[in-house]
């Protein structure tokens, strides 16, 4: 079991998305115009204990929580020396909108960075400021306060993204816009305050400076001049993507296709996701939602995908104990070297009539934490989500969130005696913006403020 040295050095969002106490959340995407002013502002935030950390758990009285991350260009603007800049991992240096990263992530066609609302070209982002508040009144006041402070800190707002309406189901799970229970499968991380016992995934997969899934090795940490690797310790990489969900089109398509195939709409949609709306995994020979969620499955009872299809969204996002090794144990070991920790929220309001689009934008502000973007987030995205050859398949990517390559929009539903197949359907999720950030420890933020 790993112990985290100083919880008060780790930014709070690592341990919690503050869903319980913080009803409101805004993500400020900022550009640094005058680093000379930004540094003292940063220094103040740290010295005045405004950045939330792992040791100050929120209570009913807590009004705000603030977390802060920087992109590569942010570190450049804070004038880190070359060696320090080079010590960040390559994907971070290149940036999510670079040509190579886009190819890996499937940001093609209408997902292309050139069409994004933010995160590329003149709208690249240096700094991510996350503001959580307890309620609307406090949030409004805090927004005004900090927006004013940004001006004094040489920062301009590229975009402000606000978390949207929240809905919970009968089991207490948060719903995403398509109407499915979400956030069921975040890994139990060793050493985290919320984890009892040893946890399933090593601390070092999500927090730098601790043993990772490779027999306890340390993942490479960014360094800063004479401070060295202590700069990177207790920090981690943060991935932010704004994913627009086309809810009306999704359910309209499901209705039409289900009618054509002579099955129910919910059955078809659940096959796409791999879970029923309640979050229960789809099992072989099951026609309706059992309503009870047991997340301890590992697919060994469904190796051919006759329940949860081989190409369904949840099987791609985490293949668990089937497919990646000769034995269940080996497969699980491999799968667990590519996990991510999700911390995002939905944006926009829920669509009232799911089959009738209201023209408003809604979706997911996807945030994940990982110690190595290339091995974790990008790997999941490229090798599992967008891979047309995943699990021995031929020509289909993730049916729910897959990229915009038209010829890959196919989906095989394994069944007995013969598979079903859905072909040539549209994309339901579109990338509207995104960036890679580094979420430094509090001491590292202090160093940056003092540099």
């Amino acid at each position: 079991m790993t112990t985290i040295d100083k919880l008060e050095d780790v930014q709070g969002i690592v341990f919690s998305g503050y869903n319980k106490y913080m009803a409101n959340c805004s993500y400020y995407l900022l550009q640094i115009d005058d680093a000379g002013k930004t540094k003292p502002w940063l220094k103040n935030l740290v010295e005045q204990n405004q950045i939330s950390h792992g040791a100050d758990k929120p209570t009913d009285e807590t009004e705000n929580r603030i977390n802060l991350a920087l992109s590569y260009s942010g570190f450049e603007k804070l004038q880190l020396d070359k060696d320090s800049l080079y010590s960040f991992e390559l994907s971070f240096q290149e940036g999510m909108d670079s040509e190579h990263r886009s190819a890996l992530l499937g940001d093609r066609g209408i997902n292309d960075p050139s069409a994004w609302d933010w995160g590329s070209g003149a709208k690249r982002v240096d700094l991510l400021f996350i503001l959580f508040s307890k309620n609307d009144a406090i949030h409004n006041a805090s927004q005004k306060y900090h927006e004013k402070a940004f001006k004094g800190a040489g920062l301009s707002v590229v975009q402000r993204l606000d978390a949207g309406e929240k809905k919970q189901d009968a089991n207490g799970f948060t719903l995403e816009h398509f109407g499915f229970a979400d956030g069921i499968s975040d890994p139990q991380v060793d050493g985290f305050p919320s984890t009892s016992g040893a946890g399933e995934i090593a601390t070092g997969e999500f927090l730098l400076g601790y043993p990772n899934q490779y027999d306890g090795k340390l993942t490479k940490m960014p360094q800063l001049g004479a401070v060295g690797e202590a700069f990177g310790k207790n920090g981690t990489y943060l991935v932010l993507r704004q994913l627009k969900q086309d809810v009306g089109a999704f359910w309209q398509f499901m209705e039409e296709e289900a009618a054509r195939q002579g099955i129910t709409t919910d059955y078809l949609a659940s096959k796409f996701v791999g879970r029923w709306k309640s979050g229960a995994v789809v099992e072989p020979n099951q026609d309706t939602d059992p309503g009870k969620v047991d997340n301890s499955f590992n697919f060994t009872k469904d190796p051919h995908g006759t329940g949860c299809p081989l190409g369904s969204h949840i099987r791609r996002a985490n293949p668990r104990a089937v497919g990646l090794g000769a034995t269940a144990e080996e497969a699980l070991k491999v799968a667990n070297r590519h996990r991510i920790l999700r911390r995002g929220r939905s944006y926009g309001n829920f669509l009232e009539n799911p089959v009738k689009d209201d023209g408003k934008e809604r979706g997911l502000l996807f945030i994940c934490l990982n110690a190595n973007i290339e091995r974790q987030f990008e790997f999941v995205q490229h090798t599992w989500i967008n891979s047309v050859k995943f699990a021995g398949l031929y020509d289909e990517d993730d049916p729910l969130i897959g990229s915009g390559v038209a010829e890959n929009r196919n989906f095989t539903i394994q069944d007995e005696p013969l598979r079903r197949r859905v072909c040539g359907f549209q994309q339901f999720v579109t990338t509207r913006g995104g960036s890679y950030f580094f979420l430094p420890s509090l001491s590292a933020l202090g160093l940056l403020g003092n540099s």
Partner: protein
Amino acid sequence: MQQNPMTVITEILPDKLKELEDYLGPIGTDIKNNPVIKFADYQYLHYCTFFVIPGDHPSPGSSPTPALLAFEANIDGTAKQFVNDLIAKNPEFVNKVYGCCAGYPGNDAGQLASFLLTNDHGANAFYVAHPGQTRDTVYRQRDIRQQIETYIDANRDSLATQDPAAIHAAIVQQLGNIPKPENRPFLTLYGDKLFTGLLWTLGLVLVGGFFGFFGPFVEFLVVLALVAAVVYLLALRWHEMRDKQDDTPWVKTKEREAIQRVEDRQLQNHLTSVIEIKPGAFRFYTLKIVLAAINLVAKLVATKGNLSGIVTIHFARWVILPGNAGGRRRLLFMSNYDGSWENYLGEFIDHASLGLTAVWSSTQQAKDRGFPDTQWLAIKGGSRDEQRFKNFARNSQLPELVWYSAYTDLSVKNIENNRHIHEGLFSTADLAAWLKCL
């Protein structure tokens, strides 16, 4: 027909290097539609690459070695048959390329062919995912599957109400006259049993010999072998303790960017790696033996699309480069694989650390920049050090000028599955399982 490795390595005339790169580069960037050569016309060709191994400048005082042109081809049948076909169909291309190389014999087809064949170094170890599957077979089986899938798509509702035997019969009838698949090669079917037999025999000879069951002479030989093994292991540890691993940081370089620019753009990738073999005869012969062992495993055991747990390699080969300029020998590795670089390297670490560490623990980027620290050749350390290993692999990589794949739309698993579908048309055993392949 057997698949073979052709690795033609020739010296590039120093003043012709740029001309060669300018000629091959545009072919590589437009592999399908370039006006110079259409690789799809060559029915024996699965994959091929052209790349330049830069000339290097070893220790001061010795003369720099010239840049080399490597031409890797994964082919059905013999190199001779392929080379003759290549020259017959596009003499201009071959002459243009090899006109830039030392020893070019002129445009006589016969002499040109023998020039290429003389400089063909084959491979020290060669892995084929599906031995016996010719390119045409791969194409034919892809078509067969496609026909079946189209038929099912159009008739799923009526088919699904029938039992597997009836569905099978309907599919067979729909396809009409389809030729039977060729039998799998002998070694694909029985190689693993042969290999197990070999190991058992060796074990019996060693154990039995040691206890004198086969007479004093064999006992003497076994003891001698054991002593030699102990001496070898001690010498190995002595070398390993003196090795220094590469600890230079990750850097964004032009070379790395050039490699990444063409990587992960489609289903498959090619990896070219050139690395220095650690100096001295000890490492050189260790490597030779390891490669021979891998070659044996590839021929006998890894014959079903699975190289020690890695299920994404179509073809891979190791070649010890000729010559040892300045006392430096080099190892060339070339692989045609499915999926991303990150996944490929990950699979190496997750499943095949033993084999690959056994190979690369005898190599280094340069003096004091060795493979990640390894103990007992491959037993501990080495590629299990994930990040150092990935960095080492990246630093040894070279960009390709030309890379051709005859089937960019098929993964190793797809090819195996297609074959299974084809075979199943002629069998009535376990039809429910066969239908799951569709």
